[in-house]
């Protein structure tokens, strides 16, 4: 299953090799031409009938990760977060994959030995380390190098109506676009699977420049707030609402008349969707539009609980809605 395998790939920002390899494999017999640029982006050209606009579909491949910055005398690994989405409380007491195949444990002091102050409310990253079972620095150095990336382990699970896994923000986008390429509609378009979203969207910046699209459409996640302890209200994003289309996000204001036009088209096609006034994360589409003044932008967001955590949850029906929406864009865009 595409999404499961994508979520299980390790893809730190700047270390997306596994995801790249997986995408290349998944497109092997589709007849698409595929190239990797110097930033590590995977650029795919889908041949077909020329359409109104030169469309670039995009999703990012990277996920929040850790980087090893020291190996202590006793063989423990010190790490720093890569990107801003790592929360110490969400990685405490988990296993992580360091580099390609080393398993480690994110350890911290047991409460029996903790001296907690009022200020110290969560496990601080300073007092966390990765334990790979090595007994000294030399032992650990045989398996791990300073600068290696680590990503959390989180088993992908089918929870009935939902899927649960890590790296959801990036991999639901990759999955939706891979499926679009495999459906192979008769229409020419490009797809960019980009690198380093978490650390500044460097991949997207270059891909937008080289592809020079008329319209950029990105697929990523929006945090769903239908959880205990959040305020209920009409504006609340919930699982099952279908594709969310933002008017503004943290990085870009989308052209209202265009968003409204897509809203009408989606309504006419009966695709579950909603407009959201504001999305808290800068979607790749808006960012690409800033990098390439010709391009219009459309951000398609899938509701996901905790999209950057090790335990993202998405609803299957929302994934269907985004697939329908992509088909609509291919048809009308």
């Amino acid at each position: 299953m595409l999404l499961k395998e994508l979520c299980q790939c390790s893809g730190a920002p700047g270390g997306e090799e596994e995801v790249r390899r997986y995408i290349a494999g998944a497109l092997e017999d589709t007849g698409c031409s595929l190239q990797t640029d110097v930033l590590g982006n995977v650029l795919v050209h889908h041949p077909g009938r020329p359409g109104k606009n030169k469309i670039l579909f995009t999703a990012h491949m990277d996920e929040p990760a850790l980087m090893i910055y020291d190996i202590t005398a006793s063989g423990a690994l010190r790490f720093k977060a890569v990107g801003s989405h790592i929360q110490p409380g969400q990685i405490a007491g988990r296993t992580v994959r360091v580099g390609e195949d080393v398993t480690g444990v994110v350890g911290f002091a047991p409460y029996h030995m903790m001296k907690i102050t009022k200020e110290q409310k969560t496990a601080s990253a300073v007092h966390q380390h990765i334990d790979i079972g090595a007994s000294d620095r030399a032992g650990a150095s045989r398996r791990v190098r300073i600068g290696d990336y680590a990503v959390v382990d989180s088993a992908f699970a089918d929870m009935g109506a939902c899927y649960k896994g890590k790296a959801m923000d990036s991999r639901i986008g990759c999955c939706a676009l891979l499926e679009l390429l495999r459906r192979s509609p008769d229409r020419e378009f490009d797809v960019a699977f980009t690198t380093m979203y978490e650390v500044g969207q460097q991949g997207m910046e270059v891909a937008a420049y080289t592809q020079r699209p008329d319209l950029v459409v990105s697929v990523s996640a929006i945090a769903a707030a239908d959880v205990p302890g959040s305020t209920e209200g009409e504006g609340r994003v919930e699982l099952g609402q279908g594709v969310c289309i933002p008017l503004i996000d943290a990085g870009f204001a989308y052209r209202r008349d265009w968003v409204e036009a897509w809203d009408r088209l989606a309504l006419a096609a009966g695709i579950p969707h909603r407009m959201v006034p504001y999305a808290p994360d800068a979607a790749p589409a808006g960012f690409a539009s800033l990098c390439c003044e010709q391009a219009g932008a459309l951000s398609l967001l899938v509701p996901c609980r905790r999209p950057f955590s090790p335990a993202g949850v998405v609803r299957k029906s929302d994934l269907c809605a985004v697939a329908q929406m992509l088909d609509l864009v291919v048809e009308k865009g």
Partner: protein
Amino acid sequence: MIREFLMEYCQSPFVSGFEQACPQILIRYFGRFSDTYENDRRGSYIFCKKGNPARRIMLEAHVDELGFMITELLPGGFLRFSPVGYYNTLCLECQDVVIYGKKEIPGVICARPDRARSADEIVCLHTDWLYIDTGFPDDTLRELVQPGDVAVLRREPVMLEGDVMCARGWDDKAGVAVMLAAAQELEKLPHTSTIYYAAAVQEEGPGLGGQIATYQIHPDIAFAFDVGHAWAEDLPRDETLSLGGGPAIAVGGRFHPRLVDKLIAVCREHHIPYQLEPIPAASGTDAESIQTNRDGVPVLLISIPLRYMHTGVETGNLRDIEAIGRAVACMISEIDREDWGNLLCC
């Protein structure tokens, strides 16, 4: 064998008060080394290797582990829960769980966005700020789960470098594994006493299983096995054990001084590295209730060094388990030749 046993055992649910779901694991492994098996009224698993009925030695470890109990179904496919035993709640956010309802149901533990937790709560181990997300619609969930069902962290044991294993519930499944290692070693050594292997229930709760098993067995000598804090980065060296450093022999008023001396001598003689764990007062283990059972039982406590206790990634070294098993087997074989009246006088 110890590794295979733990791989299987650590994936099986043995939450305190819910220890009867998979007895076959214990029966299969301990059955090879014992003559009789009893699941006592409290639920503890007691295996006996028959020998001289006048000389009874009990090996004891608790069979149960930490877990959760579902307390309330919330709208939207969410569950509230309480910890069973003292989980470190700092390590629970975003962890996978398995709920043992009508069937096994996967879920994830999540933090409430509206609840900032206070430092006190972290230490007091409240779980008010956490809930379980199952992804199920309400009506389906109501059919499958009810308050009172138990859940465990989902964790497949993994081997790290060397013989270091990371798994859920080494506290005290490692202790049960020590009994198995000792049983295996005893096959090779001459001994005449009757040996009981007691895998006792409910240590993480009230600690009743060990007490009742001891009363029933009425041993002359007892060995208790539980886990002890091993040093890891950022911990004080002087308050912790060394992972891979061999048996940690508890020293203090609760542990019979002659037996402690004997075990140290045995370790030295057989070149088994050991460490001492000074415990001035209570040890917080089943050794307490064993010592004051009936007319008093001479007891030894041997700790298995363990990192990250009471989290889902308890990490220990298989070599420690094997070393403890060997030390205990050697000691049993040796004291069998001695006069226990002399050995046990203070």
